[in-house]
């Protein structure tokens, strides 16, 4: 096995490059297939086993889904819930992180311990469900937003970020007569814009992708989000598990499944470059300080 960085090394490099390129292509292939399929005719999808470019270009599937009220409703709902949920998460996390970043605030340590405790222990699915039920939030969009409104990990990361900003900034602002709220609004928030933008993106992806909350809390299928709609459309009816399925549902043609998957995936792919810019750093901060 003694391979020097000469011929053997070069063979290994070549094999490795080919292999990794293959991995990259394989990762991408399902998207390419679904994307191509969404623009193909129903006949072509059934006839050709696999293709990355449709022979006959068709917008039929998109025309169909964008004229389906249930789909439009799910899409609009999901966009609204994602936007409102992200804003709520940001506001609640920042307003809580800021006081907790003040080392001399009394009760801070107790609250921080309770936050950390909540990272490790949770009530679980059923007690949370019963709480949502008792609060009258079943079939309300708030049930998708409020239960996860503050992520303890991001709270602590943002708190640490505030804590690490130079104290002189605040002191000089206080000299100028700024209030605590004014300091947060005028000095800290502008400084933390990149950090908050990163968290906003991650929150948005989390809400957009959430399947469990709508499954648990939205039994009324007129309120379904895109992920719920997607599941209903793509799972062939005989394969569906029990629970939370519209009984009057007629399975659609294949092309429509392709189109719905594309619509559910596209926003993530569009925001992905922005996510990628930040996540490696963010994840490392999290792993060090979490």
């Amino acid at each position, binding site marked *: *096995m*003694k*391979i020097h*960085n000469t011929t053997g090394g070069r063979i290994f*490099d070549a094999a490795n490059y080919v*292999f*990794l390129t293959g*991995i990259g292509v394989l*990762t991408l292939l*399902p998207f390419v*297939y*679904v994307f191509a399929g969404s623009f193909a005719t129903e006949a072509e*999808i*059934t006839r050709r*086993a*696999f293709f990355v470019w449709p022979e006959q270009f068709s917008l039929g599937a998109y025309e169909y889904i964008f004229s389906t009220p249930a789909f439009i409703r799910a899409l609009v709902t999901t966009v609204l819930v994602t936007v409102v949920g992200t804003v709520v998460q940001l506001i609640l996390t920042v*307003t*809580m992180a800021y*006081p*907790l970043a003040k080392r*001399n605030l009394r009760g801070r340590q107790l609250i921080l311990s309770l*936050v950390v405790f*909540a990272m490790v222990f*949770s*009530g*679980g*699915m*059923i*007690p949370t*469900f*019963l*709480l949502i039920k008792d*609060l009258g939030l079943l079939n309300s969009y708030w049930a998708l937003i*409020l239960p996860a*409104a503050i992520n303890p990990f991001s709270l602590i990361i943002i708190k640490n970020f505030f804590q690490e900003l130079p104290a002189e900034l605040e002191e000089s602002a206080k000299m100028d*007569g700024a*209030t*605590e*709220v004014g300091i947060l609004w005028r000095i800290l928030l502008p400084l933390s814009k990149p950090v908050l933008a990163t968290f906003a993106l991650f929150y948005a992806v989390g809400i*957009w*992708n959430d*399947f469990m909350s709508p499954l648990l809390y939205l039994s009324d299928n007129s309120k379904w989000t895109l*992920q719920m709609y*997607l*599941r209903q459309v793509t*799972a*062939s009816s005989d*394969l569906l598990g*029990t*629970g*939370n399925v519209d009984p009057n549902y007629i399975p659609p043609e*294949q092309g429509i*499944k*392709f189109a719905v998957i594309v619509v*559910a995936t596209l926003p*993530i*792919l569009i925001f*992905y470059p922005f996510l*990628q810019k930040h996540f490696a750093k963010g*994840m490392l901060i999290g792993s060090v300080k979490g």
Partner: protein
Amino acid sequence: MTASAVDVKAPEQAPPPAPAPGRRRRFAVHFAHYKWLYLLLLPGVVYFAVFRYAPMYGVSIAFKDYVPFLGVNGSPWVGFQHFEDFFANPDFGRLLGNTLILAFLSLGIVFPLTIVLALLLNEVRLSILKRTVQTLVYIPHFLSWTIVASLSFLLFALDFGPLFLFINNVLGTDIDFLSDPAWFRPLIVLQEIWKNTGWGTIIFLAALATVDQDQYEAAIIDGAGRFRRVWHITLPGIRSTIIVMLILAIGQMLNTGFEQIYLMTNALNRSVAEVFDTYVYFVGITQGAYSYSTAVGLFKSLVGIVLIFGTNALAKRFNQSGLF
């Protein structure tokens, strides 16, 4: 906000004097000074009380016979009845088996693959290739399980999916991968590989970047080839990261992803598909056995906590001795 301008000037002078030594009075002074900060803190504290701690209190229904109109407090205590029922239930062995098999498949296949992929990426000197492959393999991590499941449904669709046709052609078989119980676990592992191996490399790549480069030069002078360098320098260099990640993974063993399993479960593969998380959902939410399912969930959490603390203790021992 304008009114608070008055009290902001004070904090520098006020806390130290504290004329009356009564604790309560001192706190009142402190509180008055920082009332805006406490006000900002309030929504978050309310959130944690309502959405994090109230459900923890709600876990008490695992020891009660929960009746909705009596509420959590009013329902009668039954002690460990639900736990006894669960352990006596034939479902218990099946659920434990299914959960553990999926957990070990993940530990035994997905975890090593992540390290292998990280090592291969680390060997790439062509930075454009490295970055491109990284960009591609991280993407699936950001997609929902619903999308992963939907893609699987299309790719393995009966008589039509590209992978259904391809694999059955190669093997000369006629397997319906989506409903055949024997193919449930391979499918789950495949999804996990596609979605998470790429993302999982991040932490190992970060560790690999810290390995001392001088050692490689010394090894080259000593005549060590690529594989020997990986084996004797790279792997030992990231050993502690591997151990920590492995221990974390063991701590999370019973948390088979609810969404993934739920989405891939159907009437035909239920016998191998059902795990603790999905069982809690089906028994609790769809059948309304709230107390019983809470007990099942609590049992799973307790085992998870034992695993976390057990592996944490192990991690400390590994860190101290630094030996494998």
